[in-house]
């Protein structure tokens, strides 16, 4: 028989068991749930708190010339931000504003305003917000951008002076700024980038066209950290290396480019054209050695940017080329056997009426040989040779030299030009197209066609990019070039045509000013009236019909040197030169001045016999 106390004890035990056992079971179940079933979830949650992921960015690829001279790079700089709330008072704010104004390109007042420890809130529409009592709605200012692209030297001085003054409100972040160490050299081809959210966004030129290759890849580093953020020696450490963008090596040669730019500056100043552009190419390889234009800009100085200067005109603009296109129709006429260099053409004493429209020569000639037609640049003579060929063959001749086809150089925009198909020709087309009116070509297409003439009739693919280089592995990828295509059926045609074109720069030719002592120069001048296209209003009504502008000309010269073994082809085009518009006067001397220096630079020796001739010929 149990006593009363025993009964009470027993009841307490039962009660305790009833309460505690479920609690214990519950706890065990919970432990099991946390430790076994949901283990991964809680582990991840914990890791989130003591692991850090750091994103690293590689450097954007650089651009070099063919010899490895740096043209575009990334300049190390520092991005400085401030937490103005960390400034101890107005005295420190003034002191910091003073230090910043001393080393950065901004005023004391501007920095003082930026360092305000409170700022007025703005609504979503950007308007300043006010409290119901009319006072400004102020909040602590925890972030102020001081300067994005501070030089290393300036940043070091600021760091030193703020440390001395015990100012701990500035935050320094390493960054890179796209830099163009050669200033405006080749700027129209290179292009430029803008910075949006600390990322380079390419705008024009190669920067834009080759962005996929030059863009760096982000890397990530994930690690367990100590309380102060330092990585722990044990625990998770995942590392994905960032990759720098690929470096680009152009076919451009910096010294040749510098010579061309300097000579263009002189011509631009002398003739004050609306625009002026030129290019030099190696006819054997199709490598572009230099491209320049005026006006231009300096990508390091944004104030020099204008819409006109920033365009790559040599690829984006097409023009009616004028007489520089004549050798192609005549060359094919020689090749197909319709004429020989000695075939005589009646040039109608300078005016030929065809379909009731006059065609004029700049000087009156009665009869000229085909050689003379090229040398004197006779429009009538060329038109009559074209009439011998017929429309279909003239069209075929122009298309053989790929006028109207893009060159495929890596420019974001490239004009294709225009050579109308025969079915769209009118009666006058056959007399106008071969002399460079009614067709539109880009300067690059003209360079390509002259490369074919200079390369013994073999047209190379133009190249601007020579190779890509992986800066990490050093792996080099060469940009392949297809083999050149022969333009003429008969191998001797090209040599005959070159002999005719050499006479252009000799006594009696139109481009004596392009002649270089000691070298044979083959070339052709071209002066064409500028065509103003039809303008329409927003409703499509014609405001002004297309017409040839009075007193506005394109003046061009294209040539190659040494003519019998060409190393260089150069084109110069001036749009609306002032003072004179004859290509022989304005463009040919630019060719001569540039080529003389480039030949010296490349150490292409003059022919002693020709030098002797120059001395003896008055």
């Amino acid at each position: 028989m149990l006593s009363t106390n025993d009964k009470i004890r027993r009841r307490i035990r039962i009660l305790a068991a009833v309460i505690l056992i479920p609690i214990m079971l519950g706890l065990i179940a919970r432990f099991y749930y946390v430790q076994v079933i949901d283990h991964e979830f809680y582990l991840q949650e914990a890791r989130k708190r003591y692991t850090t992921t750091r994103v690293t960015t590689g450097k954007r690829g650089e651009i070099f010339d063919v010899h490895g001279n740096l043209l575009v790079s990334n300049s190390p700089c520092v991005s400085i931000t401030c937490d103005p709330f960390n400034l101890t008072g107005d005295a420190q704010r003034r002191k910091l504003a003073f230090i910043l104004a001393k080393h950065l390109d901004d005023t004391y007042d501007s920095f003082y305003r930026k360092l305000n420890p409170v700022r007025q809130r703005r609504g979503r529409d950007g308007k300043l917000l006010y409290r119901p009592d009319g006072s400004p709605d102020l909040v602590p200012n925890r972030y102020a951008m001081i300067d994005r692209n501070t030089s290393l030297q300036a940043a070091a001085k600021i760091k030193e002076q703020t440390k001395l003054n015990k100012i701990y409100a500035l935050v320094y972040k390493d960054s890179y700024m796209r830099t163009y160490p050669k200033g405006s050299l080749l700027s129209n081809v290179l292009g430029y980038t803008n910075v949006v959210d600390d990322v380079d966004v390419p705008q024009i030129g190669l920067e834009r066209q080759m962005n996929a290759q030059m863009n760096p890849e982000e890397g990530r580093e994930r690690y367990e950290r100590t309380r102060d953020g330092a990585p722990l020696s044990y625990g998770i450490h995942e590392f994905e290396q960032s990759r720098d963008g690929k470096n680009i090596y152009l076919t451009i040669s910096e010294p040749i480019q510098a010579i061309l730019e300097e000579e263009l500056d002189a011509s631009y100043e002398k003739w004050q054209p609306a625009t002026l552009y030129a290019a030099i190419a190696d006819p054997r390889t199709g490598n572009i050695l230099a491209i320049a234009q005026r006006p231009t800009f300096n990508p390091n100085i944004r104030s020099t940017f204008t819409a006109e200067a920033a365009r790559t005109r040599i690829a984006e603009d097409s023009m009616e080329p004028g007489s520089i296109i004549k050798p192609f129709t005549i060359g094919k006429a020689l090749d197909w056997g319709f004429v020989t260099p000695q075939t005589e053409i009646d040039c109608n004493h300078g005016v030929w009426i065809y379909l009731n429209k006059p065609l004029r020569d700049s000087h009156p000639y009665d009869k000229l040989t085909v050689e003379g037609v090229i040398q004197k640049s006779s429009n009538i003579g060329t038109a009559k040779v074209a009439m011998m060929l017929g429309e279909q063959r003239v069209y075929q001749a122009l298309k053989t030299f790929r006028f109207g086809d893009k060159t495929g150089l890596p420019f974001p925009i490239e004009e294709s030009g225009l050579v109308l198909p025969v079915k769209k020709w009118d009666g006058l087309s056959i007399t106008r197209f071969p002399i460079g009116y009614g067709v539109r070509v880009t300067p690059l297409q003209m360079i390509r066609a002259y490369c074919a003439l200079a390369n013994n009739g073999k047209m190379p693919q133009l190249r601007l990019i020579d190779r890509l280089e992986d800066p990490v592995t050093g792996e080099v990828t060469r940009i392949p070039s297809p083999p050149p295509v022969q333009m003429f059926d008969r191998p001797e045609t090209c040599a005959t045509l070159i002999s005719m074109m050499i006479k252009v720069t000799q006594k009696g030719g139109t481009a004596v000013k392009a002649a270089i002592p000691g070298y044979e120069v083959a070339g052709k001048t071209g002066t064409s009236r500028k065509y103003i296209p039809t303008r329409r209003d927003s409703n499509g009504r014609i405001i002004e019909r297309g017409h040839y502008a009075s007193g506005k000309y394109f003046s061009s010269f294209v040539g190659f040197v040494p003519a019998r073994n060409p190393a260089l082809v150069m084109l110069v085009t001036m749009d609306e030169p002032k003072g004179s518009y004859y290509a022989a006067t304005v463009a040919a001397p630019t060719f001569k001045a540039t080529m003389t220096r480039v030949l010296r630079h490349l150490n292409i020796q003059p022919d002693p016999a020709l030098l002797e001739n120059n001395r003896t010929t008055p």
Partner: protein
Amino acid sequence: MNIQSANQRSTRTKVRTPQHSPVSGKLAMVGKFLFAAAAVAALLNVYIYLNQKIAETQRQIRKTERVLHETEREIAQLRIQREQLMAWPHIKNMIARFDLKLHGPNPGQVATMSILTPDQAARIPLESVAAVRTPGSGVIRN
């Protein structure tokens, strides 16, 4: 016959009881414990010491990495400055500023000198080498 189980038990008890004094036994126990504790403490110390060393080395590595990073950035900056100074417009300005009487060479005045390895020099045909050829050292070409 006198068989006494009690005696047997006492004998057995005597056999089981150690002959040493109880104090020395306890001391031995304490000694063993102290030895084990010291070993553990020593291991713990070594562990802490190594951890400290690792942390210290890592701090040094980070510091050196930072210095390397800064140096690399300075080198990159200097490389760009060098390129700026090598740009032709800058050189031209310097020539003008210091009034250096320099002008371009006349045609035929330019000579280039290439320093070649003996293998490279051997591959160049003799007739193309106009001026001097010194075996094993280099080739001067007009």
